[in-house]
């Protein structure tokens, strides 16, 4: 399955097209350039497509009543797109399979199309996907997990609760996690008052502190590493499938009608992880080590098929990708990581459009545009002489 997306006139995004969303895609750009808008739009349409897959699966399995309705207004509100949507806003998400079979979900003129019963996905093309969005608000997780119980009913926005739910889910399964990029360990303990998260040293100088008291870089990077580890190794598709599909059927007394068109084991599966600003609060060296950790979990030691989508402000991260491409070409690992040039896309979001930073004649990312700031600093320095 390949995916493409076209977006016109969505907030800061004027005209964006990605013909083939690569397994590892990175966006860089100034604040307010539209990186997050683009990533949220892609995550949203991947989620809608996932639900359309479930609907198609149920229809093919003799469940005649439509399982659910798509409530686009709510989704757009959750994404913070309310003020971005205009009459000329258009989003087209397309998946293409062998023999050019394709499925298109379109949002245009305030309407969603392509998810109806007349547009069901062929049973051979059905995927069961998981979509995760690790938002920048993840830095509130330590405090929320410590004090959240006393804020019952509190709401910190759709994306915070999405990432918090994935963090909770992951910490049910992953009890210990090496944070090699920080030389630390994360541990989950059961106490009388519930789960307790701690940070321990991984060196001889032993110490243990509460997660909420750890450094800001630790607090923002642990959710990334933990959730990725969970989806890479521990995510149970069967449980998720039962939650999404079978629970619905038992709730609606449709279980007896259900004649599974395919078993879960026969269905394609994919996990989409989207991460906002992985570099938050990290020193440049730790940023690159975190990328090694992510690449290792998503593409080297993973048991599940994962696609990774990042947005970043960090030129260090983009430059580091070149090292990982070179490592792949030399069949070496850099702290457990390497990246296949053919599976990587890097875009700079500028003036509402995308600049493809992948060089076409060399296997590397063109980082020259990201050197502009340091050049300007010293051009001005020189000019003062």
């Amino acid at each position, binding site marked *: 399955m390949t995916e493409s997306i076209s977006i016109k006139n969505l907030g800061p995004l004027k005209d964006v097209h990605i013909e083939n969303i690569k397994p590892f895609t990175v966006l860089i750009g100034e604040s307010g350039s539209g990186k997050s808008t683009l990533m949220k739009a892609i995550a949203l349409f991947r989620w809608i497509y996932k639900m359309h897959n479930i609907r198609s699966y149920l229809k093919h399995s003799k469940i005649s009543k439509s399982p659910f309705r798509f409530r686009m207004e709510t989704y757009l509100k959750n994404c913070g797109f309310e003020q971005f949507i205009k009459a000329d806003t258009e989003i087209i998400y397309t998946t293409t399979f062998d023999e050019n079979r394709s499925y298109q979900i379109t949002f245009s003129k305030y309407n969603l199309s392509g998810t109806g019963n007349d547009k069901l996905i062929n049973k051979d093309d059905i995927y069961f996907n998981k979509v995760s969005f690790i938002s920048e608000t993840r830095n509130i997780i330590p405090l929320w997990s410590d004090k959240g119980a006393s804020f019952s009913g509190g709401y910190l926005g759709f994306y915070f609760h999405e990432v918090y739910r994935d963090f909770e889910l992951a910490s049910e399964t992953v009890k210990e996690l090496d944070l090699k990029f920080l030389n630390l360990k994360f541990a989950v303990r059961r106490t009388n008052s519930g789960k307790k998260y701690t940070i321990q040293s991984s060196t001889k100088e032993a110490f243990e502190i509460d997660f909420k008291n750890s450094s800001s870089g630790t607090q923002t990077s642990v959710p990334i590493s933990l959730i990725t580890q969970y989806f890479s190794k521990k995510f149970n598709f069967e449980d998720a499938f039962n939650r999404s599909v079978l629970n619905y059927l038992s709730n609606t007394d449709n279980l007896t009608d259900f004649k599974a068109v395919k078993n879960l084991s026969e269905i394609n599966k994919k996990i989409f992880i989207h991460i906002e600003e992985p570099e938050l609060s990290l020193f440049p060296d730790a940023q690159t080590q975190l990328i090694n950790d992510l690449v290792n979990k998503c593409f080297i030691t993973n048991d599940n098929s994962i696609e990774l989508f990042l947005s970043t402000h960090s*030129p260090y991260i983009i*430059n580091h990708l*070149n090292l990982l491409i070179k490592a792949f070409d030399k069949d070496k690992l850099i702290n457990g990581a390497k990246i296949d040039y053919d599976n990587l896309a890097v875009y700079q979001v*500028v*003036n509402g459009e995308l*600049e*493809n*930073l*992948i*060089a*076409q*004649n*060399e296997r*590397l990312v*063109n*980082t*020259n*545009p*990201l*050197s*502009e700031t*340091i*050049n*300007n*600093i*010293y*051009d*001005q*320095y*020189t*000019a003062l002489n």
Partner: protein
Amino acid sequence: METLLRNDFTAHYGLPTSTTSNISISTAAPYFEIEDDEYREIHLHLIPGVGMAGYRNLNSYAATIINYDKFITGLPHVFQQGKERCDLIVHTTNQRYFLLNELKDRKPKDRVRTKSISQLLSSLTLIMSVPAITTFANSHVFRHCCFFNKQSMSPPTITATTAFNRLGTIITVGLRMSKPAIEAFGFEFWEYSGNQVYNL
């Protein structure tokens, strides 16, 4: 090409024939660099490190460098108003290379690259609308739009800019980048920084 600009380009856009002086220079030197100054004049240098765009010409092809910026600036004000233009058109008389060049301004500027690409694309769109120029350009084997970005220098005790610009020392030829709007004209977009040179 100079004649095509002076006569065909101007006729196509209903302008008087251009009489702007000194808009081209020629060279067959094995290595040359081009510099444009604040008065829109271009200068040829035969030693490395002086100009903004470097050309290695080991086959000593006869190259003509046209000061496109100066040519456009010499046209009636009402025509050039609002039209972005690149700096140079470089072509070889053996019809192998036809190149549009944008040279980075030496003064610090934000979004220089984006603006340069826009200047190249606008120039390409303007000249390729002239049938005689389209025919001439398409008769060349290599048709490239090139953005040359002279590498900035740090103070001697600080090597930060050198470090950030290391890519320019690893790859000695330029980088070809995806730019569908330019490719639609049958041209490729190439980017050169630091010591990277164009090999004729």
